[in-house]
């Protein structure tokens, strides 16, 4: 699964630690999601969508559909 987390974070001038604090996860988790090494659970993905006020499908994309 691909995501635009890094881009969205950069637009807001947030560090990984800032985003981790907002999502209540570790910085390592944010890094792993951004680099595509770890796919977040559905609740965490929804939390990300709520944080950025964006629909979930505009942040996360299924690679098989590309």
């Amino acid at each position, binding site marked *: 699964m691909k995501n635009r987390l890094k881009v969205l974070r950069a*637009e807001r001038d947030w560090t990984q630690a800032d985003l981790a604090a907002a999502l*209540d*996860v570790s910085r*390592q988790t944010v890094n792993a999601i951004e680099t595509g090494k770890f796919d977040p659970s559905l609740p965490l993905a929804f939390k990300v969508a709520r*944080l*950025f*006020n*964006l629909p979930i499908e505009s942040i996360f994309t299924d690679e098989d559909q590309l």
Partner: protein
Amino acid sequence: MNDTQAANSIAKPKRQLAGSKKNHALIMVWILIWMASFVAMDKAAENNWFGSQNMTLAGIVINILLGVGVVVTYMKFLEELDELQRKNQLNALALGMGVGLVGSVCYALLLASGQVSRPDIGVVIMLLSGGYMAGIIVGRARYS
């Protein structure tokens, strides 16, 4: 709302201290106390420090209670981790258990065949903790 508007509407989050760090320190303290009580009990039983059987049993009960404390603290620690950290812990536990189980069976066969003369529970503990530690290191390296 487009991305730029959304970006402007969200305040920068305040940084918080991760609760898992505090819990990690707490579990280490519990493990150290439990291990110290285990070593003390082992030495006491070996040298007959307690004198009476009741005192020995009381010492064992204290060790068990400290062990329960370790388990409860670890469960609380697991609950407060995020999903990736929990995944790492579960993978490490699976590896520790697998290595411990396979190693224990192998050790039992060595004992039965006379290759090892004296049973030692320390070997099983070492295998379990070694497997667990290896799992933690591999997990951290994989997702860093």
